[in-house]
């Protein structure tokens, strides 16, 4: 995401503009032409085509009489799909619910994730080197697991009667919720309980990434800075807030961006664990795109929704670029 800036810096000193010798030309273009022809078909064309489709009421089951099956019974409707997003129809409402859910999910995942990984990284940094690797390796374990298996596993953990979680809650003498994943009337601070359950399962699966990144960044903080702070009388907490956090700012920004963007794109855990329920409380934008495109074959509508997803990713990325411009050096 911030690669563009980096690439520009890394490729800066441009040497002679001599170009290539004949033998090199064959090699370079012999390799790049097939690769970019391929990318033209499987990367550039889809990017253009998704925009085109978003202007049509397109379904692959109808045969249009124009080129590529467009036109005729797959008519051009201009901005009709985008207008439908704001309409008081069922489709429009579902779309808005799914966007709201996706934003809520991404926002809460970010907060919970940071609240766990940042302190945990500091703690891991403080233990002996030999066990540090072990902790890190085990914390990272869920991230390599198949998302489907994790979703099925957590579905069982949340089982109202047989599940691990409710029985644990009962064991310590509290009253567990009636159902984690299926009760539409259960809310915690206004957030549907099922959404909270999905967030817990997702953070459990995903926190290892940010943890590893934070640990690496903490190791990069020059020790002289901390030592100097100590001489000046800084204690653990003030060191954390006045030395560690400010120095981690670039990493923090990167982690926030990546976590947001990947949360926007989460699909499996919603689809497999809750199927969007109860009462669409966990219906994500990705689910909405998938179901409309491949279950109802409403691909024009789905294409326009996927452009909204793209816009969300783009906005977060641009905000990151913008903030990254402000200088940080140490």
């Amino acid at each position, binding site marked *: 995401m*911030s690669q563009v800036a980096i690439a520009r810096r890394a490729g800066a000193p441009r040497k002679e503009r001599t170009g290539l010798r004949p033998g090199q030309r064959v090699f370079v273009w012999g390799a790049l032409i097939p690769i*970019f022809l391929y990318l033209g078909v499987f990367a550039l064309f889809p990017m253009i085509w998704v925009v085109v489709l978003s202007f049509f009421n397109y379904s692959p089951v109808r045969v249009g009489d124009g080129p590529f099956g467009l036109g005729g019974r797959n008519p051009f409707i201009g901005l009709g799909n985008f207008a439908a997003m704001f309409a008081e129809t069922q489709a429009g409402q579902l779309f808005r619910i799914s966007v709201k859910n996706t934003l809520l999910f991404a926002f809460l995942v970010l907060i919970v994730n940071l609240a766990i990984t940042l302190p945990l990284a500091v703690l891991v940094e403080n233990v002996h080197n030999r066990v540090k690797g072990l902790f890190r390796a085990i914390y990272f374990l869920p991230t390599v697991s198949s998302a489907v298996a994790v979703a099925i596993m957590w579905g069982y953990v949340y089982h109202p009667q047989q599940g691990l979680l409710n029985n644990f809650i009962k064991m310590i003498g509290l009253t567990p919720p009636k159902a984690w994943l299926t009760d539409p009337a259960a809310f915690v601070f206004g957030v549907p309980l099922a959404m909270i359950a999905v967030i817990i399962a997702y953070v459990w699966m995903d926190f290892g990434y940010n943890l590893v990144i934070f640990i690496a960044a903490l190791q*990069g903080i020059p020790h002289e800075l901390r030592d100097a702070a100590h001489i000046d009388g800084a204690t653990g907490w003030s060191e954390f807030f006045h030395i560690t956090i400010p120095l981690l700012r670039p990493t923090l920004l990167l982690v926030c961006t990546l976590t947001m963007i990947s949360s926007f794109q989460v699909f499996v855990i919603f689809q497999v664990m809750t199927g969007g329920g109860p009462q669409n409380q966990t219906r994500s934008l990705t689910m909405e795109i998938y179901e409309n*495109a491949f279950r109802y074959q409403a691909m024009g509508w789905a294409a326009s929704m996927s452009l909204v997803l793209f816009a969300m990713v783009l906005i977060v990325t641009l905000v990151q670029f913008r903030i990254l411009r402000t200088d940080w050096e140490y």
Partner: protein
Amino acid sequence: MSAVQLAASSSQQTPHRQRSLRPLVRLLIYAILLLGLAVTLVPFVWILLTSLKPASEIVRIPPTFFPERWTLDSYRTIFTDPKVPLARFYFNSAFVAVSRVLITLFTSSLAGYIFAKYNFRGKNLLFGFILVQLMIPFQVVMIPAYLILVQLRLIDTLWGLIIPSMVDAFGIFLMRQFISTFPNDLIDAARIDGAGEFTIYRRVVMPNLGAPLATLGIFTFMATWNDYLWPLIVITTHERRTLPLLLTWYTSQHGQRYDLTMAASILVLLPILIVYIFFQRWIVRGVALTGMK
């Protein structure tokens, strides 16, 4: 994903000095870390133990944590189920994952090398296109990609899972970053010795790419092995399912038989966990270096 940024910050690892913490604080730190460890591991242990219980024990309320009677019945049921030719599904997943790894490593290192070490017209434009690719979520291009596969008659084939992802923008970017640091002298020396350009790539550059190739390879393997959405769209025939698809199908068939569904989950998780145990260092370091996801 900003590789360099992180690489820079983690490469200057100052030798870690153990600061003296008060014993009580140290104890507290270990207590918290062990709690985290428990939260991470207990769900895995729980489903493993569940898969080792007899069916009659599953439905008991409250459930047992450890099996009262240990049994491999659930695994036996899966292995002997004629509708679940497991070897077939393992083969499907492995075939797709290995093919994608090999192809991705080849195209990424080749294009990465060219972008790192050659100057030619249009280079910035082409590389810019690669960088733009990094920002496109899969869900945005999946509808056109599906329509292309329909045209190519690759729907419901394993090749349909391989062919749309033979060139990986992130892989090219990663390789370019690594190869940029590779000394030009070696390449020039080979050139003076009369080596052709492809020979230089294969004999001089490739052998020095062990670490980044391993990292990229492992990540491509894991991502493909765990991929669900694209196979869900492309594959319709039961025998061509990959393991994650098999798992959701199997769960839909045996909803309440948690001994069976958890055993099936273990069977899907096991290969990737073995890969992780062997390559753990590479994987964790790869994330720290690249922020790969």
